[in-house]
């Protein structure tokens, strides 16, 4: 097999565009594999693990473009690499406004702007966020890999000036019905939600929508906001704003367990809430009770959504429940088809919150799992790229996304991981999530369909059966077709349940039965 490389010094392209370039190159006859990446250390490591080893790759820097091709025909590789610039042309913009090149030019063109959305590489992002705040603009901060001290300084500045920094590492927000980043199209309504977990916010807003209610605002705060270093500056700012907001009747707060000091401060503040409030700290073992609680607590995102809708409507809520007897029958049927050595659970998640929520549900049943993002009490994977025993992997973690798009856009690493799991004869259950919405892949299910088919086939060839259970986070209003996405999965024999928690519970029951 031949390999070819091209380096373009100081040519910056964003990771989503480069993913599209690689996809188009990979579709050319004679090309078996194509990669187009900026030369970050992580990307160079990835190239090495894929067998792309060359001196010019080793010397490329983070602002240099690397294109690496593998194929059977050396002349075809050279032909493409010689005319590489042809492949680096963007399709025409769909935007009605002219494109600008700096924040100040943007502000000149749109002086009524009240928010800056930042999705540039982390090492440059804090500087632009600072600039935005100094111009009196709120910030939606999608970029990750931002230094903790920069985050703290930005949030302290915002706090003093009545602004908010949603992020860094903030995947989603919905402000007055407008989705930012990865957001779902949900009904507007009386529930305001604050969250440091992107996919947690998405699941919550979709579940509220499915229960017939709606969202006033969903304010992301970034994954580290409730750490003791940041002490919840954006969460507290958002809480105050939602209390004052006339569209919001009920407030929900979703997070991983806050830092110890921050938790006590926050609970005190929640007890002074001016509006009914639901708190869900996924993964927390117990809520400290500093006194008479004026808020209610939830264990899972399903429960948080149910409680919030009940508080908003005063009516009991029931989501479209799945018949438990049917699920029991299905579990028995799947178990009977498995080979004796099949016993392990593997969860390959695009959504970090889903990975976390699934771990909590496994821990509740005493099931020890490995993860690259372990919940307290769980084990860290010694190598995030390889599963062991029961493993739940967050494929959206920084180690997998530096210099490449999030798995909600780029399914290639998740596809490879599913195929790798399928080669392990001890794997019994694959747990997957599919996340629809703005800016996500046009067909999250379609991206993994062939890998799912292959994985099922590999287990059959070994005389076993691979159970695949999934949830689809989305609404019928999303740009993707929710019903069609579910149908594609079900046609392949995937068990599709209405939420991540329910899918994880199904997987848990099956794995526990296999242990007996």
């Amino acid at each position, binding site marked *: 097999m031949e390999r070819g490389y091209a380096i373009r010094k100081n040519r910056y392209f964003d990771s989503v565009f480069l993913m599209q370039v690689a996809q188009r190159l990979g579709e050319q006859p004679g090309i078996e594999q194509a990669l187009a990446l900026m030369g970050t250390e992580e990307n160079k490591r990835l190239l090495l693990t894929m067998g792309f080893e060359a001196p010019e790759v080793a010397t490329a820097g983070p602002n240099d473009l690397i294109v690496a091709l593998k194929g059977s025909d050396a002349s075809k590789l050279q032909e493409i690499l010689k005319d590489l610039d042809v492949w680096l042309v963007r399709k025409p913009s769909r935007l009605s406004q002219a494109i600008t090149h700096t924040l100040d030019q943007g502000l000149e063109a749109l002086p009524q702007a009240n928010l800056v959305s930042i999705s540039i590489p982390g090492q440059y992002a804090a500087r632009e966020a600072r600039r935005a705040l100094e111009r009196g603009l709120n910030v939606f901060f999608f970029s990750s890999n931002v230094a903790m001290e920069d985050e703290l300084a930005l949030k302290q500045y915002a706090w003093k000036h009545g602004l908010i920094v949603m992020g860094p590492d903030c995947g989603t927000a919905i402000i007055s019905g407008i989705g930012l980043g990865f957001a779902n199209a949900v009904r507007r309504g009386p529930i305001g939600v604050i969250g440091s977990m992107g996919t947690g916010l998405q699941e919550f807003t979709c579940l509220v929508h499915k229960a017939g209610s709606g969202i006033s605002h969903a304010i992301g705060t970034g994954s580290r906001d409730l750490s003791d270093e940041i002490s919840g500056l954006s969460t507290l700012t958002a809480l105050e704003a939602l209390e004052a907001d006339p569209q919001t009747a009920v407030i929900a707060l979703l997070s991983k367990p806050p830092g110890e000091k921050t938790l006590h401060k926050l609970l005190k503040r929640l007890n002074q809430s001016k509006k009914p409030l639901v708190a869900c700290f996924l993964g927390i073992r117990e809520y400290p009770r500093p006194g008479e609680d004026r808020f209610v607590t939830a264990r899972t995102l399903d429960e948080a959504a149910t409680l919030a809708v009940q508080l908003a409507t005063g009516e009991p809520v029931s989501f479209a429940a799945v018949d438990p007897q049917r699920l029991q029958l299905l579990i028995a049927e799947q178990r009977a088809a498995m080979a004796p050595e099949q016993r392990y659970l593997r969860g390959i998640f695009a959504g970090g919150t889903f990975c976390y929520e699934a771990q909590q549900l496994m821990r509740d049943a005493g099931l020890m799992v490995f993860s690259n993002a372990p919940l307290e009490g769980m084990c860290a994977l010694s190598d995030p790229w390889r599963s062991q025993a029961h493993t739940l992997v967050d494929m959206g973690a920084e180690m997998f996304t530096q210099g490449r798009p999030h798995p909600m856009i780029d399914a290639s690493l998740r596809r490879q991981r599913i195929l790798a799991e399928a080669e392990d004869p001890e794997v019994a259950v694959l747990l997957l999530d599919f996340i629809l919405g703005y*800016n996500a892949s046009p067909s999250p299910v379609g991206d993994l369909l062939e890998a799912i088919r292959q994985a099922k086939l590999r287990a059959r060839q070994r005389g076993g059966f691979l159970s695949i259970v999934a949830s689809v986070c989305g609404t019928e209003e999303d740009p993707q077709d929710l019903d069609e996405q579910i149908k594609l999965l079900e046609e392949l024999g995937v068990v599709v349940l209405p939420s991540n928690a329910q899918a994880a519970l199904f997987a848990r029951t099956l794995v526990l039965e296999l242990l007996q």
Partner: protein
Amino acid sequence: MSEQGKAKTALDTLLQDGPTVINLGLQEFAEALQDQGAGVIHVDWRPPAGGDEELAELLGKLL
């Protein structure tokens, strides 16, 4: 800050009016905002000074 009798903050105004956005980075984000009917302008961001961080830091201080 935003309680009765206190001045509205920039965040209160954002929640009340909805977002009007300057988008730095992924062009797809600007397109999705436009599709939803939000006011948006896209900034085609490039690394400063061809990616030399030290130089960019210095320029940032000078400007």
